[in-house]
């Protein structure tokens, strides 16, 4: 269980970074050809929802981790 959590903690920011870079590229492509609907199609909307969910998760994990660290420091 701890290993799985450690893996999730490791992969989350990388996934977020990759998806953010991907979105940046899609936005540039959309500027070149807006009629292809790179930012307005259903697939793009799902992509953005996933990106938001990942951002929230990453932030929650980071905040939780910081809280635990602060607590532990206080105990010592």
């Amino acid at each position, binding site marked *: 269980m701890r290993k799985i959590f450690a893996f999730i903690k490791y992969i989350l920011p990388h996934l977020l970074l990759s998806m953010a870079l991907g979105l940046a590229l899609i936005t540039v492509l959309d500027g*070149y050809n807006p009629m292809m609907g790179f930012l307005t199609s259903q*697939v793009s909307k799902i992509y953005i929802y996933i990106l938001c969910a990942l951002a929230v998760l990453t932030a929650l994990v980071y905040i939780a981790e910081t809280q635990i660290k602060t607590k532990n420091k206080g105990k010592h």
Partner: protein
Amino acid sequence: MRRSLPFMIIQDVLLTGLILCVFAFFHHVLPRMEAVDKSESSPAPGVQAGISPSPAPETEQPAPAQTEETWGDKFAQYFSQEIQTGENFYKSPNVSVTVETVEGELEGHFQRWYVADIYIKDISCFSAYVENDSYESYVTTPALELAELAGAILSINGDYCNAQAQSGFFVRNGIAYQQEQLPRCDICVLYMDGSLETYAPGEYTAEEILERQPWQIWKFGPELLDGEGQPLESFNTSSAIEAANPRSALGYYEPGHYCFVVSEGRLSDGGYGLAMGELAQIFSDLGCKRAYNLDGGDSACMVFNGELCNIRSGQRELGDILLIKEPEVQP
């Protein structure tokens, strides 16, 4: 889990590539595969499936409206009693098309573009076509094949409406396929009375336009002229699209009199490509009241009398075309 920095960079780059591949698959490849499957099992041409035509669900093409002063009388000098064709002209009792090649320097670059001057006797001569009438499927066909299948005298590429068939507001040959108002897309409406208007987003409602009986609606843009024949100062598109490119556009003088303009581009010695402002100026100089940009780049294509006009024609298969043809029922 500690990893070295180069390892993490490589891993993230690969992950980004993988994510983009998955996105491209769902955004582009899968809809295309579905479209091909649909077109293979599609009903006979003329029968619409899936998208409900509107306002009435009938799939038959409505009869074009009759105008009081016939265009045949008004433009009689341009028509001929019998069909006459030449290298750059076509004349018949119903249609007159003259294609002119224009070359010159614009903004320090060599440019070449083609102007097709069009007179028609009946609005049904100004038609649109996709293979198998599959406006809901992303099917592409070589330009020459499309022109031949449609019986076109003259054709240019359209707005690729079937690539984004589930959105936008578009009507083809009197049938409304979608009525969604796109927030950033100008539309061009050719009404059954022969008049042509262009609208920016927010300037129209689908109900108002459908009430006036549209014959064709294109959803690409941007609009190029202000309705008085003057070029617009800014265009409703991105700067990348505004830059010099091969172009395809249509212009409007008066009911029954139109023009198509297709320009070369991205060629070292055959034409640099027109910026949007230059294209608008060309239409203004031609004396058009309205003009509307269509899909450009490798799609920009003109076919006249069964032959490709521009050098870059045929670089890409087309989704749809605008065409001038003889009326199916002789007026």
